[in-house]
């Protein structure tokens, strides 16, 4: 069907770069627009309606253009070098997460054999960027925001890592493709409860990791303006705050879809459903996760910083530790139920 094209490794790399550079901003724009619209409709209003004509689809493009024309202000007392470096430290990891997510059976930029490890590692690099931003701003709100962000991101890193460990135990591999392949049976439901609890823990911790409401204390506007990014303006603000936030939102949705919802596999292993290509399944599952995240935002008020820490250390982490033991016992003593 498709003529055999042979590409050199460098050409393949170029294609990969092109694909990622096309997909990541598009995903971000779509998710950002979805956020506007989903929230608006949940709140009985219309949301953006004018930019672009049809239901305001171009509102984020217009927004981006506006920010491009905005003055870039770095406060006098800020540490200029760290201040500008922070943008990169936040933005670059947000893009690099996408490298290892398997969109389809063979549609993956790099199928690392420690894919899940890479994913967890790279998604937590931005913590450093946020701390850099907060500290270098020499602003009190920024400092409080950065410290909150630091404490929160590391506290919720653990439930994510540990719930991912559960998945690794059940699938027996660190490669994301293998993990997806291992989910050709309803992973979420069987073995009883384990996957579901891990999924819930992962979702909650992801919301915290994304610093979205109800865990948005690091950027709580009614308390500390925009936290670490209070002093950022113009394009720099987009790159350090808005873009990574939405890009990470999609990334975590994709990770959730990959680890728990069976990635590019059909929801149930039925012959009829196999006809639908894998990336469609993947996109649907990711969209579902994104909607879940968007749904949570207008529903809850914000927690307080100490309550959030308590929730992580006293609820989520003990639960996942116990889950690991249960999953281990299950794999060892009832393996026939798995495969």
């Amino acid at each position, binding site marked *: 069907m498709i003529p055999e094209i042979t590409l050199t*490794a460098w050409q393949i790399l170029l294609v990969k770069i092109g694909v990622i550079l096309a997909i990541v901003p598009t995903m971000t724009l779509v998710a950002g627009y979805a956020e506007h619209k989903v929230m608006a409709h949940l709140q009985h209003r219309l949301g953006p309606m004018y930019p672009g004509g049809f239901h305001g689809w171009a509102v984020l493009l217009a927004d981006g253009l506006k920010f491009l024309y905005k003055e870039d202000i770095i406060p*006098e007392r800020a540490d200029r070098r760290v201040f500008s470096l922070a943008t990169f430290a936040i933005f670059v990891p947000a*893009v690099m997460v996408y490298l290892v997510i398997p969109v389809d059976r063979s549609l993956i930029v790099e199928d690392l054999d420690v894919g899940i490890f890479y994913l967890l590692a790279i998604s937590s690099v931005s913590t450093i960027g946020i701390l850099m931003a907060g500290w270098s701003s020499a602003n009190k709100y920024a400092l409080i925001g950065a410290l909150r962000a630091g*404490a929160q991101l590391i506290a919720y890193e653990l439930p994510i890592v540990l719930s991912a460990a559960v998945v690794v135990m059940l699938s027996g591999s660190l490669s994301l493709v293998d993990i997806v392949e291992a989910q050709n049976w309803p992973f979420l439901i069987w073995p009883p409860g384990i996957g579901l609890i891990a999924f819930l823990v992962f979702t909650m911790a992801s919301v915290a990791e994304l610093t979205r409401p109800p865990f948005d204390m690091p950027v709580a506007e009614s308390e500390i303006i925009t936290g670490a990014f209070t002093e950022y303006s113009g394009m720099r603000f987009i790159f350090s705050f808005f873009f990574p936030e939405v890009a990470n939102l999609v990334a975590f949705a994709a990770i959730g879809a990959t680890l728990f919802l069976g990635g590019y596999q059909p929801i149930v292993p039925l012959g009829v459903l196999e006809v639908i290509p894998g990336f469609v399944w993947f996109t649907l599952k990711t969209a579902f996760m994104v909607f879940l995240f968007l749904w949570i935002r207008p529903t809850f008020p914000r927690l307080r910083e100490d309550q959030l820490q308590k929730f992580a250390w006293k609820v989520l982490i*003990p639960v996942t530790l116990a889950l690991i033991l249960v999953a*281990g016992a299950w794999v060892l003593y009832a393996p026939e139920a798995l495969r």
Partner: protein
Amino acid sequence: MPEGYFGQYVTIGIFAIVGTVLVAATLQLSRLVRPNHPTTAKLTTYESGIDPIGHGWSQSNVRYYIFALLFVVFDVEAVFLFPWAIVFEELGTAAFVEMVIFIGILALALLYAVKKRVLEWL
């Protein structure tokens, strides 16, 4: 040539560079079109609309430090956990019991921290 095990990481390295260039290029583009009229007021640190009192860098509550320490402990645990998670099925009960003990010790540590009230914010 980006091939094999090492090649995969070359891709990752290249992507890091691409991301960096993307940001730098857009910031440069923005520099071409945006205005630049810094004034003293604009360059002042924001503090709810009045002149800032004192400096923004201050020693903060050590509470954060304890959370960071706890994090290190548990993150190291996670590092141990992943290799074990792949192979424990082959190693059998002995490895599982070892991990139970390991996690048990950590759980005890967490319990100790709770009892010592270091997880209380105030």
